[in-house]
């Protein structure tokens, strides 16, 4: 995939050219957030559950080395073949080799943000292997040749009319039909054929249990199961942070995941894959791709607790009004903004700044990642490492120079106010991003300090 060069602000600016569409996007996602709130309130011990989930994940991070070995050993005992990939390229190579060994030309894939992160699809296609994404939302963006814009709701940015058109073009549905029920039925028929034809299936992994070597995959559609139970080769791709210690811990995470994600009590299917089916080959690819590095960053390692529920995106007032693609990364939104700089500080230096630090993300996060605090900390790191423009740094230096010297500050402030009163045009121009859509504050005749000096005695 091409790296986008435009930054978040530029892409968000573009997204905002169509205000009714921004309203629609914002309201749709807010509705998901509201559903999450409603169902959370039906669980009086909700906050305790979040605490528990967070501590289990902390334990998993602190024992990751041993848990991974335990998982590998259990999985092998169960008959799975375990692979280790240091980075995206190695992951893609491993998957391709497995498929080539079996002569696979056409395969199905259920949702896996990891394979998005690794850009697996283009790699496979370059090797002559056709990948069919089977999650409805992912299939839609695949047909549209776009990346998903949300980790749980991949085509949340698309209107049903646009989807109707895509289906008309690719699946031969009647032109102008944009009824979700009808389009879903059409996709069901189309993808059933693919499930029946596929030689191999790739699935993601929601949780991998060290104790048992099993993997849990959660879907509402049933696409992971349709793929994995029909194909002769099942490849499960997972980041190394998906490990949880014991089977009983699944109870905690499965109670939180769907409620946080979409406000439903659990996903329709929570499938526990332990052994390959008779005659089937089960491969598990454990992928690092920067995770062990993030583990070493004390301030940021908690981001590895993420269970990819998407709640932080649904609640994020910036995400809702800028769209997933404005984050130009496989994982968008607040969590994407704290994961991406670990992958590439230069390419993603803009993302931690794409936030007001309002903190709503940290409050909805089912594993209590301190997302907004990490955004703040990434800003400090990115500035220190020199990934912000020199102009901005110079401006900041002037600012701190002014603000830490009372005399200079007073003069500057006075002048600023005087200028604004006398010649509003000088600051109220289109070069001033504040003024583009907002009035400047009306400058008062005197500052508070001036007033205080004059009135101190009398108050």
């Amino acid at each position, binding site marked *: 995939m091409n790296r986008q060069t435009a930054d978040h602000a530029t892409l968000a600016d573009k997204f905002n050219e169509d205000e009714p569409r921004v309203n629609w996007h914002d309201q749709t996602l807010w509705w998901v957030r509201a559903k999450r709130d409603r169902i959370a309130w039906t669980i009086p011990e909700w906050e305790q559950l979040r605490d528990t989930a967070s501590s289990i994940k902390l334990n998993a991070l602190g024992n990751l080395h041993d848990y991974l070995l335990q998982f590998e050993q259990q999985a092998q005992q169960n008959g799975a073949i375990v692979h280790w990939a240091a980075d995206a390229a190695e992951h893609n190579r491993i998957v391709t080799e497995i498929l080539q060994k079996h002569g696979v030309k056409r395969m199905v894939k259920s949702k896996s943000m990891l394979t998005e992160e690794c850009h697996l699809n283009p790699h496979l296609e370059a090797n002559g292997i056709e990948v069919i994404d089977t999650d409805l939302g992912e299939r839609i963006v695949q047909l549209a040749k776009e990346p998903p814009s949300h980790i749980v709701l991949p085509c949340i940015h698309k209107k049903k009319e646009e989807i109707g058109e895509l289906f008309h073009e690719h699946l031969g549905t009647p032109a102008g039909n944009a009824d979700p029920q009808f389009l879903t039925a059409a996709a069901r028929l189309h993808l059933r054929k693919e499930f029946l034809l596929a030689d191999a299936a790739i699935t993601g992994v929601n949780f991998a249990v060290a104790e048992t070597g099993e993997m849990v995959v959660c879907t509402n559609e049933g696409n992971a199961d349709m793929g994995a139970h029909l194909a002769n080769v099942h490849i499960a791709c997972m980041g190394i942070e998906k490990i949880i210690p014991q089977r009983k811990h699944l109870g905690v995470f499965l109670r939180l995941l769907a409620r946080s994600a979409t406000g439903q009590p659990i996903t329709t299917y929570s499938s526990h894959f332990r052994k390959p089916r008779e005659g089937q080959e089960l491969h598990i690819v454990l992928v690092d791709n920067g995770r062990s590095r993030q583990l070493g960053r004390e301030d940021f390692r908690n981001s590895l607790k993420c269970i990819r529920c998407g709640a932080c995106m649904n609640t994020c007032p910036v995400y809702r009004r800028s769209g997933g693609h404005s984050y130009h990364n496989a994982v968008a939104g607040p969590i994407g903004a704290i994961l991406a700089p670990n992958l590439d500080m230069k390419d993603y230096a803009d993302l931690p700044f794409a936030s007001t630090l309002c903190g709503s993300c940290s409050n909805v996060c089912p594993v209590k990642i301190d997302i907004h605090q990490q955004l703040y900390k990434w800003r400090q790191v990115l500035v220190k490492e020199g990934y912000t423009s020199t102009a901005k740094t110079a401006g900041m230096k002037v600012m701190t120079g002014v603000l830490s010297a009372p005399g200079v500050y007073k003069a500057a402030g006075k002048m600023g106010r005087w200028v604004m009163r006398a010649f509003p045009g000088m600051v109220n121009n289109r070069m001033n991003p504040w003024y583009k*859509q907002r009035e400047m504050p009306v400058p008062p005749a005197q500052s508070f300090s001036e007033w*205080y000096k004059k009135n101190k005695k009398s108050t």
Partner: protein
Amino acid sequence: MKVGLFIPCYIDQFYPQVGIATLQLLQKLGCEVEFPQGQTCCGQPMANSGYEHLTHQCNSLFIKNFADYDYIVGPSGSCVLHIKDHLHDPAAEPQAEKIRQRIYELTEFLTDVLKVTSLPARFPCKVGLHQSCHGQRGLGLAQMSELVAAPFSKPEQLLRMVEGVELVPLDRADECCGFGGTFCVAEEAVSVKMGKDRVADHVKHGAEVITGTDVSCLMHMEGILRRQHAGVKVMHIAEILNQYTDEQANS
């Protein structure tokens, strides 16, 4: 009780009436208030932009100004939060720590330290309360809608003591207004859109005045309201809490 009044830079420069209302309100409630001269900025705009390492001088100055007070009170949740979280000085760490523990945002000072239960104020008006994020989520001035926990709101508690105030309900009780410090210019489009949506929620529910604990958010929303030529005004909560009753005004 000696209170040091902390007036953040943009209030000093653009909203002196908020400083005045804060000062008068605290005095009315029996505090001995001083405004240390030579205040500038708490360093928050720099720190939130990733330049916390450049704020040392701001910090030293802040400590010099405020080390001697029993309490430090400021009418801005975000600035107070910044000091609480980030005020450090290797040369004066004990003083810095004392300040971090003794600094209060105005409304929490009123409810938690002064334990105000009634206010001699009257303001017959439909008021929309904007819960600023840094005050609410950072300082805990109000319960957050994301949590499954009992609701409370310190600013609301105080507004309910003001005779005549009618608080309007909102569709989204605590969504961010989009100011966000340098975000308001760096991400102009999203910032403005957030502000427009926030303002629309208040207008839709009939607010005549939008109030809050952070002037920065109010300045942003005011800029939008004025551009829209909406009749709705913004006022800092100190200005409402400091409104005199008719008798006081006449006496």
